[in-house]
């Protein structure tokens, strides 16, 4: 474990921050521009994982394991969320034969 931490610290913290920001931005853009619900889901996972990576990086630099514990929590919650989300998507697909979110616009005004 100390080895891993040392290995992580080889790379400067700035790199992690830039990388995670880029990853997060890609996720956001993916959520905004994509119409396929499955891709949107994947983009959300991307944002979650960028946050996870940043947490792990800070945890390593500060020698504080709390950040890594957070990561585990987030992964658990994300797994649960994905299970429900995918189930919903399956149900939507069964009733509408599409997972295009622009078709799902009946709840308005």
């Amino acid at each position, binding site marked *: 474990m100390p080895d891993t931490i040392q290995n992580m610290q080889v790379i400067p913290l700035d790199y992690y921050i830039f990388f995670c920001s880029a990853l997060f931005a890609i996720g*956001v853009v993916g*959520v*905004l521009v994509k*119409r396929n619900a499955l891709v949107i889901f994947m983009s959300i996972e991307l944002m979650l994982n960028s946050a996870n990576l940043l947490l792990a990086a800070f945890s390593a630099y500060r020698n504080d394991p709390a950040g890594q514990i957070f990561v585990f929590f987030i992964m658990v919650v994300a797994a649960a969320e994905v299970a429900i989300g995918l189930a919903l998507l399956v149900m939507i697909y069964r009733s509408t034969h599409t997972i295009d*979110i*622009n078709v*799902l*616009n*009946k*709840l*308005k*005004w």
Partner: protein
Amino acid sequence: MIEKIWLVPLFPLIGFLAIAFNFMRFKGLLSGIIASSAVFLSFIGSMILFLQLSAGQEAMTVDLFNWIHFNNLSIPFSFLVDKLSVLMLLIITGVGFLIHVYSIGYMKEDAGFNRFFAYMNLFIFFMLLLVLGSNYLVMFIGWEGVGLCSYLLIGFWFKNQDFNNAAKKAFIMNRIGDLGFLLALFMLILQFGTLNFSDIFSKSQTILVGNSTITIITMLLFAGAVGKSAQIPLFTWLPDAMAGPTPVSALIHAATMVTAGIYMIARSNILFVLAPVTMWTISLIGIATALLAGSIAIFQTDIKKILAYSTISQLGLMFVALGAGSFTAAMFHLTTHAFFKALLFLAAGSVIHALSGEQDIRKMGGLRHKIPVTFWVFFIGSLAIAGVPPFAGFFSKDAIMLGTFESSPVLWIVSVLVALMTSFYMFRLLFTVFWGKAIVSENKYHPVHESPKSMTIPMMVLAALSVFGGMIGIPQLLGGSDRIQDYLAPIFAASASILKQHPSEVNVSSELALMLVPLILIFIVIYAAYLLYAKKRLVQLEDKPRSFFENLITRKFYIDELYEIIIQQPVSRLSIFFHDVIEIKIIDRLVNNTGNMIVWAGKNIRYVQTGNVGVYLFFMVVSIITILFFNLFN
């Protein structure tokens, strides 16, 4: 026995509750009998108290419970039993009982029979509270309560809108006076720190005559009396109050409630003698009212309205006596007036009953032989009110005349004029109704008939009282002992010493002249009325064009119209203005437009809710970024 005083007002209260809560269940005359017996029990109680006090028992205050206790102010709920209140008790319960019995006959056919007796008993209860209260606040409850009952009974036949308006008029006019009374109570609390009669009167004995605070207090109290006792400028409600059933007019608007103002001033006599300005005002308003109402009565054609104006005029005379400082004379006239005016009203009710509801004297005539009992009691009542010896009114009116002469001879002359007017309009009424020929055509279904025994017997009792009631105050000049003077002397002793009155200021020969001159004039006036109304039947000819002056009086000096122009119209115009401009154009607009704006905004903003998930997501991201930047630069 005096400690049991609370029983006296309790009986009518129980009667009221019993009838009120069994409204629909009492059948026939039961409620009338219950109500009458409740008042009769009170009368017996009052009689016992009267006998005890006459036998020399001291006046006393009976505390029932501590009612209001606040800082230094303590107002007990207590009754004052002294000679003045017991005299009033006798009048209220005695005359009240007779009128209750009369009402059983009079109201027999009425659908609201039970309701009528409930109100009547409630009235008696409040009236007893008014006279028994040992402080101004208990008196005030009674004062307001009788006003309420007056309202309920004037508007008793509530399906007629005119009657409802008359009831409202009476209530509102009374309220104006009551405001004065209420303000006086506050000032009394400020000045004396108490409302108990005994404390106030003992404390005020150290105050100098003419004290300005006392003057204001007495003026305000007098304003209350003006409203309740129908004096200028608040007298116009009483003629309209005749809309109620006739027994109500007899009980409330002749014998008891309207005399509450007289009683209140007599009760507060010590305060009033400390304010000579108020005393003069009382005299002036009293005499002006007596003259005005007396002159209006001469030209009226409604049998009850004539009596109503007569009541106002007689009350005016009592106020003259109060203003002149002869409180005993005022109370004496109050007593005899209760007898003969109640009698006259009941007799008028009997006439109306006989003619199946006709009240216009122009359509009456020749009733002397058809309803002899009513005729005789009416005749006795008229003689009594006109002041013909030895009837009751002669002695009491003479006492007032003597009092006014001692105060000022001018006042005496005007009072004589009022007395002459009284006999003129009363005999005009008597001759028109009972002499001559019947004009109203005989109704086949309801022929003119004498009233039943339940109505005639109370009238006979009252007639007897009108004949002999004056015996309680025969002046020493005529060999009497003026018992009412001795009886009430302890009540008015303190104020008499302040006024420094000498009872025998007028010597015997001039007192005799004061008695005889009006008497001769009264006989002349009665003869004139006989010529005009029994021989020439002038009343039926009164539709001819009139002179300006006659017209003025017939239309009651246009006082109702004047009030309408000065008060009613500006207020109603102001209300219309408030309704049309403030209410509709400002407040309504404000409220409606607030609602309209929100509806409009909702209609337009709802299009944001497109249902498109991508748009929601976009807004979410933009909002989060905005919040981030906002936090970053803050």
